[in-house]
Structures are given as structure tokens and as C-alpha cells.
């Protein structure tokens, strides 16, 4: 019964059965419908042809991992010791003038106070601890004070200890670090990486991105292409 009713309401499949003048044998799409669909499809394809590349052009930076494979000299080994940080300036982007410069804090790795940290990602510890001054709360520059051996952020009062771990305030993880190596007696600084509160190594993340427990899955890494 129900089937019969739906059959009655449905339009006939063939245009000839709908009583259209000039219908062809076996024709199911009207010419008007075909032309409308064709015009829409052509317009859609033409629009997509310029819009999609332009969109990709604008959105591409979201899908690059942003790491720069570049080593920068920050001075001879004799400049640094394990008990105090020395500020140095590196260039993160030469194209922006002063805005492309960043201050980093460098000290020698101390095998005793720095318990063999997983931050090196292997058995070979990074010979220098190089901390970024970018506060991981919202990105203001932190400053190191030698007397309390603390890093303090001027914006919202974030405090980090001698290893760069959070000691107070709003920051969500320790200060970011940089790769470091020694070549011909000179210290060189490489790419940035982030660490969680156990100093486990992660790819570079933005400030305010948590990296502990389940939080780390809410702030995905940049896709490497």
C-alpha cells in the first residue's frame, strides 16, 4: 500500500513519460536541467581553478614544520661555565632586521646537577644548555637573574628555575631549548625544540601549548612536509 502511494507521487523516470514535447527515447534529464547543471559546474570549476591555489598559497605556512637547519656560532667554549647563564644573540630570520634577532641563554651542561636528562633524545647529552628567552606563557622575553638563579617574565610574572622548569606563574611548560654542538672549540647553536615538565623532547611548539599528559594531544605538532 505504502509502496503504491510513493510510486504514484514520484515523477516518471523518462522525460517522454512526463509528456514533454520533443522528448527523446530514453532521455532522463531535461535539456534545461542539463544546461543549468553544466553552467553551474563550469562556473564552479573556473572559480576553483583560481580560488584553490590562492587559498593554498595563503594557508601553506600552516603545514610546514618551520625548522631551519642552520648552525650559528655564539662564541668560544671559554665563554661559558656550568654555574651561570651567558646571554647571546642569534638571528632567527635575517629578513626582519632587529625583529629577527633573539636572545638566548647559554651555559655548559653539568652532568651532576643536570641529571642525565632525556632532552638530548639519546645517550649523548647536548654539551651546552641553550635556553630560549621566549616565555612559554604568551611569548614575552624572560630575563635571567643570577642571584636567585631564576628566569622572570615581565608580562605576567612567569618564573623558571635554573633548568628552565616552571617555578611559578602561568607558563605551561619549561622554556624551549636549542640544539648545541662544539666545532673547533667554538659553540654552535642549532634548531629550537620544546620540552615538557620532565624535559622530554618535543618538536618546536608555540607558547601556551601544553605538553604534559593528555594535553599534548590537544596541541598537535607541525606536520613535517
Amino acid at each position, binding site marked *: 500500500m505504502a509502496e503504491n502511494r510513493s510510486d504514484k507521487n514520484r515523477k516518471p523516470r523518462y522525460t517522454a513519460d512526463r509528456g514533454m514535447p520533443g522528448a527523446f527515447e530514453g532521455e532522463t534529464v531535461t535539456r534545461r536541467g542539463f544546461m543549468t547543471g553544466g553552467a553551474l559546474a563550469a562556473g564552479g570549476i573556473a572559480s576553483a581553478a583560481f580560488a584553490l591555489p590562492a587559498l593554498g598559497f595563503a594557508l601553506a*605556512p600552516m603545514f610546514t614544520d*618551520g625548522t631551519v637547519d642552520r648552525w650559528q656560532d655564539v662564541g668560544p667554549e671559554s665563554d661559558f661555565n656550568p654555574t651561570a647563564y651567558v646571554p647571546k644573540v642569534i638571528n*632567527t630570520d635575517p*629578513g*626582519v632586521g632587529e625583529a629577527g634577532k633573539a636572545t638566548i641563554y647559554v651555559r655548559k651542561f653539568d652532568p651532576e646537577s643536570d641529571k642525565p636528562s632525556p632532552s638530548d633524545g639519546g645517550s649523548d647529552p647536548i654539551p651546552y644548555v641553550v635556553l630560549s628567552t621566549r616565555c612559554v606563557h604568551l*611569548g614575552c622575553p624572560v630575563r635571567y637573574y643570577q642571584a636567585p638563579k631564576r628566569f622572570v617574565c615581565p608580562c605576567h610574572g612567569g618564573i623558571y628555575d635554573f633548568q628552565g622548569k616552571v617555578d611559578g606563574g602561568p607558563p605551561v611548560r619549561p622554556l624551549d631549548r636549542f640544539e648545541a654542538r662544539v666545532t673547533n672549540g667554538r659553540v654552535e647553536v642549532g634548531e629550537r625544540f620544546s620540552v615538557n615538565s620532565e624535559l622530554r623532547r618535543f618538536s618546536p611548539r*608555540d607558547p*601556551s*601549548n601544553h605538553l604534559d599528559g593528555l594535553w599534548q594531544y590537544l596541541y*598537535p605538532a607541525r606536520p613535517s612536509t
Partner: protein
Amino acid sequence: MSKLTPPLPKFLRPAPPRPSEKEPTPDIGEPNGKPGRADKLRESAGEGGAQVIGWLDERTGTSPFLRGFLFRKVPKGTNWFYSLGSATMFAFVSQAVTGVFLAMYYNPDATRAYESASYITNEVFAGELVRGMHKWGSTVMIVLLFLHMARTFVFGAYKYPRELNWVIGVVLLVLTLAMGLTGYLLPFDQRSYWATIVAVNLNASAPLIGPFLADFLRGGAEFSSVTITRFYALHMLLIPGLIAALIGAHLYLVAKLGTTAPPWLRAEKKELTKEEI
């Protein structure tokens, strides 16, 4: 007669008579006082302005449109609070005009932006005034926008059938705040730079989409030379275009739906007579 006059351009020459017509009017009036073609042209020259407007109006249909748009009926009790929306739009227009002229001197290059901005302030004639109008005008626009929103809310003007206009208005609010954010970087002094760093990292704090949003705004993982050009393009092309289009939609709906009466005006109840009951 016309053979004696200097040759006129073809379009000024009189059309040849149709077979049923008489001889055309001569170019120069006859001594007996009968006006010629030149006299008629001279007479109609004074009405040129009106004729041009009439010509345009006949072909565009402007006056029926303006009659409906500008001379529509408004409810009793309409007052100065109803001008806040127009005031906001005027602030937008003033931002657009001053912004266009600032763009003539401004250089969105990370190493040149600060210098070009201080050049506008210190060297260009009236540069301090135009830049000042743009800077303070942005604050004025946001204040007016919130007042307009408060008026709409308090008067209940967001209710049926005007809900869509409220939604468009909220999008306009967000876009205007985005204008404030993107414009703040452009002077490229210490305050702009660090404020933008903080603002982008605030965007990065959103779960899942945050890191992508921040990379989109910065144009990469680090603040770089493309960040300022990106903000400049958003600030002067993309967002203003969207705002202008949405203002058009907003105004269309205002004209179509009309405005609401203030809430303190009650509908006048007519005492019904016995016959009407």
C-alpha cells in the same frame, strides 16, 4: 540656408527631414524673430544639469530606489539612539579614507615599516593629523559599535524578524576587532611587536586549531618578514572588503525590515465602540 553656415560636426547637424515632414528648423534665426536651431540650443544649455540627472535617473532607476531607502517610514519615538549605527558606518568610512591615504606613504617591510610610519608622522604634510585620525578613529569606531550593539539589545531590536541582522552585526563586530588587531602591528614599534607576539600566542592556545591558527597569522613557525605583509594585506584588503560587503547586507535588511519602536512606546489601544465589538 544651412549651406551658408560653417560645417558643423555631423552629430550637431540637423537630421534630414522625413518624407512627411516640412523643412527643418534653420540653424540661425531669421531676421523676423523666428528662433533658429542655435537659439534653441542656447536656451536648453541652462537646463543641462537637470537633463544629465534626468538621463541617469531614467536609465538607473535611482530615484525610486532612494525614495524607498531614504524616505521610508520610521516608527513613532525614533530618537538619537537610532543614529549610532550610521555613526559607526561613518567611522568606518573615515577609517577607509584615511587608511587609503596612509597606504600611499606606508611601507609594510619589516626593516622599513617603523621608519615609514615615523616619516608619516614627522615629515609628511598633515601626516600627524591623518595618522592620528586613523589611530583614534579605530577606537571611536569600536566604542560606537558597542554602543550601537547595546542600543539594539536594550531596545529589543534583535528579535523576530531581525535576528539575522543581529548575526551579521556580530560578524561585523568580530571583523572590526580583527581590524584593530592587525592594524596594531603596522607601526612596528616595540609595543606593536610584543603585543602581536602575545596576541598570536593567545590564538595558539586554542586546543587543536590553535597552533594552525597561529602559524596562519604569522605565516610560519616564527615571527618573520612575511608576518607584517600578511597583517597588512589582511588589514587593508581582506577584512575591509568583508566589512563593506556585510555593511551592505546589514543596511539592506534594515531598509527591508524597518526599525523597531522604542520599548517604552506601547501600542496605542483604541477604545473599541460597541458597534465594533
